[in-house]
């Protein structure tokens, strides 16, 4: 069994969805399990999928699925704010995140709304789509990936043996549609440290169409005290990229640092933008963000 909404790997293991399968409903699913606590999670079997919001799972035919394991029945609290930061449950919907009223001083929480807006799906999708689902789907354009990587998030992962491990969000998505989740693991939550939430944060998005799917989604943060800057790049690249600087870099320096990362191997060209254009936009938006933080 794989992690929450772990569709990429799941589909790689099953046959590719055949063209003839309809997407009217999940016609091959026979069973639904709704565990009310961790111990009630069923033993994994082939054809299982964890169900969070369902906005992706129900959007494709899923001919390999036989059983849905509901995660919302576990009743995780969506948002838990503490002195050390914010814990976002994997099942927290984007709409809940957007509506979150952060404690004073968490300047970067302004990103919640803008990252939610950057989702290609509408606000109606955001009413059901979850933070965890967006991360586990691991699309390059996943705006939650940009958010949690930029804010130095740490993923909390339930292991099938009952244990738990933590992984920097930067290392969670390993490629287009792939994550670091191992067989049977579930993404439980993402923890955003208070120190990151206190940063100044700015976001830029490029898309071929207005409100379209992100071709480049970049976030830059600035530590107002120490002057350190971080630049997170998503959508134009197969997996999130973050450059950390002790102080604002010079334009040439930023360009020189970013440019070598934007290789054909890491760039993600697709129907939503050619790779060369995404590269151009990434470099351009990075400089725009640097300028904005410098202002």
């Amino acid at each position, binding site marked *: 069994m794989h992690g929450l909404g772990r569709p990429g790997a799941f589909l790689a293991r099953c046959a590719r969805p*055949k*063209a*003839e*399968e*309809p*997407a*009217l*409903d*999940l*016609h*091959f*699913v*026979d*069973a*639904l399990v709704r565990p009310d606590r961790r111990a009630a999670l069923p033993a994994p079997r082939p054809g299982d999928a964890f*169900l969070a919001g*369902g*906005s*992706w799972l*129900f*959007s*494709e035919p*899923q*001919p390999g*699925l036989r*059983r*849905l394991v509901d995660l*919302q029945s576990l009743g995780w609290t969506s948002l838990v704010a503490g002195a050390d930061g914010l814990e976002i449950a994997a099942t927290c919907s984007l*709409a809940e995140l957007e509506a979150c009223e952060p404690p004073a001083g968490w300047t970067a929480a302004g990103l919640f709304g803008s990252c939610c*807006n950057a989702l*290609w*799906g*509408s*606000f*109606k*999708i955001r*009413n*059901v789509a979850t933070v965890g689902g967006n991360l586990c789907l691991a699309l390059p354009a996943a705006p939650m990936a940009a958010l949690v990587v930029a804010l130095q998030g740490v993923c909390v992962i339930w292991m099938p043996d009952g244990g738990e491990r933590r992984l920097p969000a930067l290392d969670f998505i390993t490629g287009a549609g792939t994550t670091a989740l191992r067989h049977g693991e579930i993404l439980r939550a993402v923890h955003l440290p208070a120190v990151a939430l206190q940063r100044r944060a700015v976001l830029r998005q*490029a898309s*071929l*169409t*207005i*409100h*379209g*799917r992100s071709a480049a989604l970049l976030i830059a943060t600035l530590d107002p005290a120490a002057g350190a800057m971080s630049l997170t790049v998503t959508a134009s690249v197969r997996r999130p990229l973050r450059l950390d600087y002790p102080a604002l870099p010079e334009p040439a320096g930023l360009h020189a640092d970013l440019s070598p990362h934007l290789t054909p191997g890491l760039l993600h060209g697709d*129907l*939503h*933008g*050619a790779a*060369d*254009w*995404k590269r*151009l*936009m990434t470099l*351009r938006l990075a400089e725009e963000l640097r300028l904005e933080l410098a202002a």
Partner: protein
Amino acid sequence: MNFALNGEARSVEPASGQCLRTLLRGLGCDGVKKGCDAGDCGACTVLLDGEPVHSCIFPAFRAEGRSVTTIEGLAGPDGLHPMQRDFLAAGAFQCGFCTPGMILTAASLDQAQRRAPGQALKGNICRCTGYRSIADALLGMANIDANRVPDAPAWGRSAAAPAALAVITGRARYTMDVGHDRTSPDIVGRAATPPAPMLHCRLLRSPHAHARILGIDREAASLVTGVRLILTHEDVPATLFSTARHENPYDDPDDTRMLDDVVRFIGQRVAAVVADSEQAAVRACSLLSVTYEVLPAVLDPEQAQLCGAPVIHAKPADSRIADTGRNIVTELHGGIGDLAAGLAAADVTVDVTYRSQRLQHAHLETHAAIAWQDADGVLTVRSSTQVPFLVRDALCRLLDMPRAQVRVLCERVGGGFGGKQEMLIEDVVAFASLRLGRPVGIEFTREEAFIGAFGRHAMRVRVRLGARCDGLLTAIAMDVLSDTGAYGNHGPGVLFHGCGESVGVYRCDNKWIDGVAVYTNTPPAGAFRGYGLSQTNYAIESAMDELSEALGLDPIVLRERNVVRPGDPMVSFDAAAHDVEYGSYGLDQCLSLVREALARGTDRLPPEGDEWRVGEGVALGMIDTVPPRGHLSQAEAAVDADGSVVLRVGTAEFGNGTSTVHMQFAAGILQVPEGRIRLSQSDTAQLGYDTGAFGSTGTVVSGLATVHACNALRDRLLEFGAGLLEVPAGECVLDKGAVRHGARRVGYDELAARAAASGVRLHGSGAVTGSPRSVAFNAQGFRVAVNRATGTVLILQSVHAADAGRVINPAQCIGQIEGGVAQAIGGALMECMVIDATGAIANPSFRNYHVPRFSDIPHTEVLFADTFDRLGPFGAKSMSESPFNPVAAALGNAIARATGRRLRATPFRADSIVRRLSSREDD
């Protein structure tokens, strides 16, 4: 599971993998539409505890304990929700399939969201309107003249669509909306819905671009519980036909079998499974084991013509394929004058090649049909079609049945744009239902709409123009290569039509056109708005712009010097006699209107910064008002016992608004309010014949038949009424639902009663042949700002001038134009069906095929030429498909003028613009 549905407690058991939409439709909420299956289009939107969700991706079991509101439950006790009233007043729909979801979404918006409708409505696709009327609804603006005065003129008034109330309340019945009302007979007393629950048909589709089927093992599939029938090529007639439907069935090559033993594109149907449930049919399809012998495939139309290319159709001569060995469906070569001499006489020439991509119609209602036999044994097919009569005739031929034994009908159709001028599914469900003696239905998924229904022909068009220094054309040559895909449906028609008016609109002594339509092992192309003209128009009108640059001449002036004027022959590839006349002429006005509007400008300024460059572009288009080779239509009007008028027409309503026009004609001629007219349409059982709703014929052909029928009924009423009043008929008039002589009146209800008593029928019929034909004109102007660094295109101004003759319903006609421009902006800037290396459609979803959303479409100023057509009803001309045609060229020309570089292929996406601007290639 217990939940509240529209305020009523319900208890149901959802299936594990069921989505909420399917559950709700099963409970009779047919206003919850199935548009995309993927949460992309918003047609299935419902409110869950007041919050909108896309019910197609919402697990049904999660409705437990929640309160669900569908369009059926949105209205308050006083009748309509305010948003429904706003949509009604603004006329904010065409086909109406997106409307319930659009209204529910709009009704849920808070003030902040309403201030940013582009973001708020990005999850709602409307393919018809271009969103302006929806924006008006959000602003509470009225476009519809709600005043139902009985003596309203038949034209020049924005009457409401007769189905408006049904559409905005979710009660309008589309093809699959047969859930909760199986019994109501239609106007002719024959049920329009199946008498019993239907069985579900699903299709197995080919994974290979070209393969021979060696065997199909159906054992495992037949063991699935609920499977009733499996059909393969061994089970069905081997008759060759064309899925394309035309008045003349010989227009298209007979190259298609219901189920073939050779598959020629990825997605071609291989087998059909009919089962008690859709789930059983789907599962059984996945268990069919097919053995293929994979054959060499050719995907490129240039290569397909070469010697040694795989032969896609080895068919007999009576299939009417021009050259099976070279994969050529049809070709044309012809012209007038002497092209070489014309080019030699030119001071300036251009020689340029343009490419138009494959597009999807993206009508929100996918193809769907249900077939059954009625109590008299008549095979009845309820379908989402633009051409019920032609489908009826095709079924008669394919199944070898007489016309009297086959009935095809549609109620409201959820968009077409040409995509439903095709028999894609009716054959299979008809055959299956005859075999099983039970109703059988099929409904395409959105993915099937991309891979199993047919889009616009991709074309490569080379244009050579020669002109003297003063701009007068000395030569026009056009060389067209059209990729018809694996089957030739509409291949010839689209090629010939595409080679017509785009060249015929220019006066020039020397013209030559070469055209060829070629088979490839890719999904077939079909009829698409513009029918070939959008592609050639793009090439010709772009080349004219290049010519104007080369001449240093204003592009509108260049056109004014060369366009045909009344009296000029309209000639493209031959000078043979034809039936197209200048019933009216407004092209000069259209060009002036666009010039003046661009000169006026708008208040939208380009963004600041030297990266932004501004340019203007124009293009024009001409279109014959009726398709060639005959378009027949009949109509009947009668006074019912209660004095109301019953109007029967054959043409279908799929958002084109022609129903409204027919009502206006009838109301105006018969002097009754529209509310006293009942319109019954698109049913082969109730009327003799109608070629169908394509080629923009709903007003000019079918409408003319209605006018004739109503005129005949008017004469009958006057004659009968005058007899009762014992005065000469010539002294009577129709007035407010009565025959009036001076102050004396006799109402239609009394007339009806007296007529019935004396055995007289108050009835009129009309029939037209669609000939002679007139010409309509369009001109489009854009001012754009292009960012040279990012490739971003901002449309600062969009103006469209149309010569539609006398406009019958301004709100609707403007809506048709806005919708056509919007669809064309999609095709020019965003949309592209991508064929991958195997021949499959790489992006068969709205997620990856970007249909314009609210924020993608600028406001287009629509202006009308002031003309009156002597051939059309009340002076009207066609105006549905033609607004699409000049848009791509006008946009491309504006971008070229802004940047100094020209893209010669659509779509003009930001990434291709940047690439073009950074390339060293010269123009």
